[in-house]
């Protein structure tokens, strides 16, 4: 895999006076956030965070409000000063950077899109988009040319001379997006960029981000509290609770094998057939299965496999990318996923063929080699599967 663009190591952010002592003090750092608040009056927003973001990846940080995700993303460029730890961007520790180095980082490498847009009301769309270029001293002609290209890219052609308050929320966020893109940064940070928008516009904007990601291949770190948004956009998703990482992995890993009951609860409403791939229901090939049965790739979403499986009475074979047959699925397996949807999380890969599934690198991007290993499922959930099978 690529070397990570951003590596976060042992990152802490403790708000409150005396907060800087917490990470280094074994007695304090071991305590829960509630205990710390009680004892020291400090609020632990980010607690001992470790993760890597690979080049070109969309890395989603998800959590409920107050889980520290917005603080975490601000710590990456020190909009909020972290208490301790390391944030390595291209191998350089941001926390050690001086003022001018940090400014250069913000000007050229990492830009950010904000929840409430943060546009300058006294500037036109064109001037807002070119703001970052102006700040770094680009000549007027050049910055207007670049900005015009970006405005076309984000679909605001014709609105160059409008002011932010003349635009709808969705269009304002396009300006915010344009402003972040104009400086041609390597990485874009998104802080709940679409949560202030109407659902329909949110969907458009999500599609827009996916399109831009495909076209430009920027690394993106995306904070959201919306699980469906996280699943839609994220190559990998990090779930936070009380400032701590609970689980990190691709969407289907979170849904297929939640690390604990918190995550299980979190993902329980997700339509599983839309998220899980065939790998989660593939069983060993039965002797009776016909060799000329239809073959589906292991990376296919279960939902997309339904027409094929339903069109034949016999099981369907599952192969990995190079044609090796990994196993089979049948109607029962698919129905059990759909039926179990909403309450059960029973469909972990059958233990017998786990190794083959793991080798079969399912998700696009496939950066989760180091992802949290699939954990043991809670007991009652395993028994649920047995009941179905």
């Amino acid at each position: 895999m690529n070397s990570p663009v951003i590596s976060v190591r042992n990152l802490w952010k403790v708000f409150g006076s005396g907060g800087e002592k917490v990470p280094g003090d074994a007695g304090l750092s071991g305590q829960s956030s509630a205990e710390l608040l009680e004892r020291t009056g400090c609020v632990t927003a980010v607690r001992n965070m470790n993760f890597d973001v690979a080049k070109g990846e969309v890395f989603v940080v998800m959590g409920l409000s107050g889980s520290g995700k917005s603080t975490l993303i601000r710590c990456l460029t020190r909009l909020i000063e972290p208490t301790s730890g390391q944030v390595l961007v291209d191998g350089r520790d941001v926390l050690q950077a001086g003022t001018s180095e940090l400014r250069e980082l913000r000007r050229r490498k990492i830009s950010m899109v904000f929840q409430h847009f943060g546009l300058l009301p006294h500037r036109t769309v064109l001037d807002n988009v070119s703001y970052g270029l102006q700040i770094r001293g680009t000549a007027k002609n050049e910055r207007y040319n670049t900005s015009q290209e970006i405005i076309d890219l984000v679909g605001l052609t014709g609105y160059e001379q409008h002011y932010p308050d003349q635009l709808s929320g969705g269009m304002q966020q396009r300006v915010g997006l344009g402003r972040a893109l104009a400086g041609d940064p390597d990485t874009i940070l998104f802080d709940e960029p679409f949560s202030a928008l109407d659902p329909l516009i949110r969907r458009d904007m999500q599609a827009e981000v996916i399109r831009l990601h495909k076209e430009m291949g920027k690394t993106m770190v995306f904070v959201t509290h919306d699980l469906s948004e996280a699943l839609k956009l994220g190559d990998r998703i990090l779930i936070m609770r009380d400032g701590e990482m609970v689980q990190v992995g691709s969407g289907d890993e979170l849904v297929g094998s939640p690390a604990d009951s918190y995550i299980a609860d979190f993902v329980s409403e997700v339509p599983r057939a839309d998220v899980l791939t065939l790998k989660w229901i593939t069983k060993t090939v039965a002797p009776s299965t016909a060799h000329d049965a239809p073959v589906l790739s292991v990376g296919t979403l279960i939902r997309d496999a339904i027409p094929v499986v339903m069109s034949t009475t016999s099981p369907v074979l599952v192969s990995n990318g190079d044609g090796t047959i990994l196993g089979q699925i049948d109607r029962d397996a698919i129905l059990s996923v759909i039926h179990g949807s909403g309450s059960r999380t029973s469909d972990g890969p059958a233990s017998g063929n786990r190794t083959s599934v793991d080798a079969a690198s399912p998700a696009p991007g496939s950066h989760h080699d180091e992802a949290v290993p699939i954990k043991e499922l809670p007991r009652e959930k395993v028994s649920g599967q047995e009941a179905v099978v």
Partner: protein
Amino acid sequence: MATLLRDRPIAAGRATGGPASAHRFSRRTRLLLAAAVLWLLGFLLLRGSGTLALPASELTDLHRSLNLFNGWIAENRDGNPVFMYILTPLRSAVGLVAGFFMAIFAASPTGEVIPVLGWLGTVAVLTWIAFAIGNVKVALLTAVVFTFFGVQGLFIDAANTFALVLTAVLLTLIVGIPLGVLAGTSNRVQKVLTPVLDFMQTMPTFVYLAPLALIFLIGPASAVIATVIYAAPPVIRLSSHGIRSIPENTREASDSLGTTGWQRLYTVQLPMARRTIVMGINQSTMAALSMVTIAALIAAPGLGQVVVVALQSLDVGTAVNAGLAIVLMAIVLDRVTTAASQRAEPSARRARRLSGRARYIVLAGTLLLTLGIVQVSRSVLWAAVFPARLNMGAAISDGVTAASGWLQTNLYFLTHSFRESVTVGILNPFQSLLTETPFYLLVVVIAIAAYAIAGWKLAAVTTFCLAVIVSLGLWNDAMVTLASTLLATVIVMLLGVVFGVAMGRSRRIDAAMRPMLDAGQTMPAFVYLVPFLGLFGATRFTAIVAAIIYAAPVAIKITADGIAAISPTVVEAAVSSGSTPWQVISKVQLPMARKTLALAANQGLMYVLAMVVIGALVGAGGLGYDVVAGFVQSSVFGKGLAAGLAIVFLGILLDRITQAAASTPGRKPGARRT
């Protein structure tokens, strides 16, 4: 304030204890009652003793030594390094700027030299400035009003006033905007500045003058310096507020792009705070006009001078004529600066009919025209000195004097009986209650009341303030001022509640009244005296009425905003449970707006105090009289200075008590009944 903050958790803690909370509040009420009873008993038993009355011509040792201090300063003005290197150069510099503008728009104070621009040139230049920073409408207004000054026969005086205001505003902005920006960007500066500004705004305008005249001598320079001190707080506060109210996420967004501090200031903070800063300029300008007119007392030339002289000779006609000119000047300054602040709004900027370049062309063209008019004005006599046959000043004054005489004769029954019944029925008894109670008893009573309101610290502050007043030897005069002030404040609050509730409850009444109140607030304090002098003659009563009219707008507006700010849901809930409108007002809106009412009382009180003191010019006694006398006679200079100090401490006392009342926690419903 610190006491209050500390008290709050205790109060809250007790409040949760049920019976204990009832106990606390009943104790407070009992203390206040006890203080009242003590006062009445003391008044009845000890009446007339320990009143510390000091006849107008008598001085205490302190006053005499302040007189000596005055002499000492006069002697040392040329030798002392502080004067030689700091104060005198400052005075000359300010005097130079003021003199420059006065020479341009008016003439040298001797009045013999023709103004550099001539009257027509002045009108043209000011009209062009109004057009450049405002719009065509305010430019026309400016032209009409400044020409009318000529018709009033007051062109030179008005131009002098304007020149002083302009000087003071320019200096205010040079000092105020950078300070405000600093306070907006640095918490430390803000922390240091806030109490200083609070103090500057608590002081009645009047009391700056004597000490400044002492240091800088009388004349335009001290007037400008006094004006800068008075006018700076609004623009400092609003600049800071404008920068501080920029949304955090906008600042963060610009930081995330790697702005330096200066870049942030120039691309984000100043442009976004622009409108608020210009609003601050508007308020500072109005304050400057108010102070420049009052500075007539230390020999500042201009309209204020005309009013003061007229008031002293009870020449109502001339006073009204000049007062009208001040009002018109206030309207022009307010309209032009308001137009400038509207222009600063982003939406206004983009709605302009002219593009940037076309506007510059128009401005350049009109500037050429203006310069042409100036040239005419410098070469033709009728355009240089306002033609005498157009001067209607005498006619206006005579007309007003006749009208006032007619009113006083024919409405004598009404005005006189009204004045006398209030004076004899309310004012005199209340004043004697304050002046004839032994001072030690009153100090104790006020201290107990202060303790009951907000604890030991407030009691200590009030006792200290009263002790200072006693030691200044002006206790009796202070009580006379206090009586008028309190009486006027009570009426102001009645007006505030009645009109404030009406405005808070009805959008229509609000829309009808607010422009009037806004206009009332922009008027310089001074001009309020004039019409009531015409109606009621020169008495205490006139000063009180003027103070009421001067202070009512601010009290009404604060109350109205407080009532309007109550959540509509609460009112809806009260109505839906079947309350009558009166029940909604008395049981929901007024109790919920309690803090706002206390704030309105605080502001009303400060306005009233400022006006009651100025009322000395129309016959109010007390501390204000001492101050005015101090300006006029050097033999009582020391007493005037002491009276100024006494006013300051009286102001602090009243301000602290009402502020404490405003911030004490609301009563628990259960405590009401006890």
